């Protein structure tokens, strides 16, 4: 059981993750978490498999993107009285044990956000192109948010109820990772970075971001600033 986590909810945004979602949910449920899978309009059996594995399943009738799915999960958990919320990628690259480390870090540092960082831990098998892309994203986000983070696109985070209630994502797709950091910066609440391990494999690499996505993220963030 995770330490001191009577009401820790883990939000998993999933789109066509049938090959791995059952294992991911089973691992998290086995650790004692309440798991919420937001099935983001999948065309495979992601939702059914997640439900069977022990997750609550929210289904988007259409595919909106990971940011929209995470916000749906956060809203659901808050309405159900969650005290602590963890966001967790569906592709199996995170370790369930790291979620407990993040939750512990919240209390230990009196923080409202604990952000996983693969660059503070050993991350074997990270391709050089992925490292370069993530470093560039980190430099950009540091510049625009003023937060001294080392890993801006890590999907493993823990939030207190107060912190989660300050997250209001309007970026439906991949730009949400930067938007979360903007929300944290605007909130003025404390955050802490925690070393976590990201296990790269062929499946997660195929699902991951590419250089072409970074241009789209930049355009999304820019357009967002032009409109109220």
């Amino acid at each position, binding site marked *: 059981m995770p330490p001191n986590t009577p009401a820790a909810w883990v939000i998993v945004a999933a789109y066509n993750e049938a090959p791995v979602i059952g294992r991911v949910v089973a691992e998290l449920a086995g650790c004692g978490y*309440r798991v919420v899978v*937001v099935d983001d309009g999948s065309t495979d059996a992601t*939702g059914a498999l997640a*439900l069977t594995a*022990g*997750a*609550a*399943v*929210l*289904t*988007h*009738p*259409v595919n*909106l993107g990971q940011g*929209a799915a995470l*916000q*749906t999960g956060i*809203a*659901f958990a808050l*309405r159900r009285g969650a005290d602590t919320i963890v966001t967790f990628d569906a592709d199996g690259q995170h370790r369930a044990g790291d979620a407990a480390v993040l939750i512990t870090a919240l209390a230990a540092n009196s923080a409202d956000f604990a952000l996983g960082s693969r660059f503070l831990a050993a991350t074997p098998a990270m391709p050089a192109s992925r490292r370069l892309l993530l470093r560039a994203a980190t430099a950009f986000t540091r510049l625009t948010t003023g937060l001294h983070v080392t890993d801006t696109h890590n999907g493993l985070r823990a939030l207190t109820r107060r912190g989660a209630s300050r997250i209001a994502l*309007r970026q*439906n797709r991949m730009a949400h990772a930067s938007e979360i950091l903007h929300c944290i910066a605007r909130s003025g609440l404390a955050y802490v970075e925690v070393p976590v391990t990201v296990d790269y494999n062929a499946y997660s690499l195929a699902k991951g971001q590419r250089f072409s996505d970074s241009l789209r993220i930049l355009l999304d963030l820019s*357009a*967002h600033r*032009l*409109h*109220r």
Partner: protein
Amino acid sequence: MIAQIGLSILLGGIMAYAFSQYAKAPAIGFAALAAAAAGLYFVWLPSHATWLAERAGIGRGVDLIIYVWVVISLLVMLNLHLKLRAQTELITALTREIAIANARLPPETK
């Protein structure tokens, strides 16, 4: 004169549109308003357009007016794009409520 009146009506329409968009997208509303006002000015005082075009290295005043028109068109397109994004946000909010209202819970938590 007929062309000037026609263009003035069109540019006046764009100015009204830009003004109506100012509250939601101030930067774009202001830029479109300024570009349309400049276009209106050059339509009625083409010699000024020629004078400015020569100094800007564009060559002919009519080319300057075309450039201004292109800028206006791009700004209107950008504004339409932002409107589409706003529509997407509404769809997202609706989708979110549908998903939460129809949550499927695992047997032990029902």
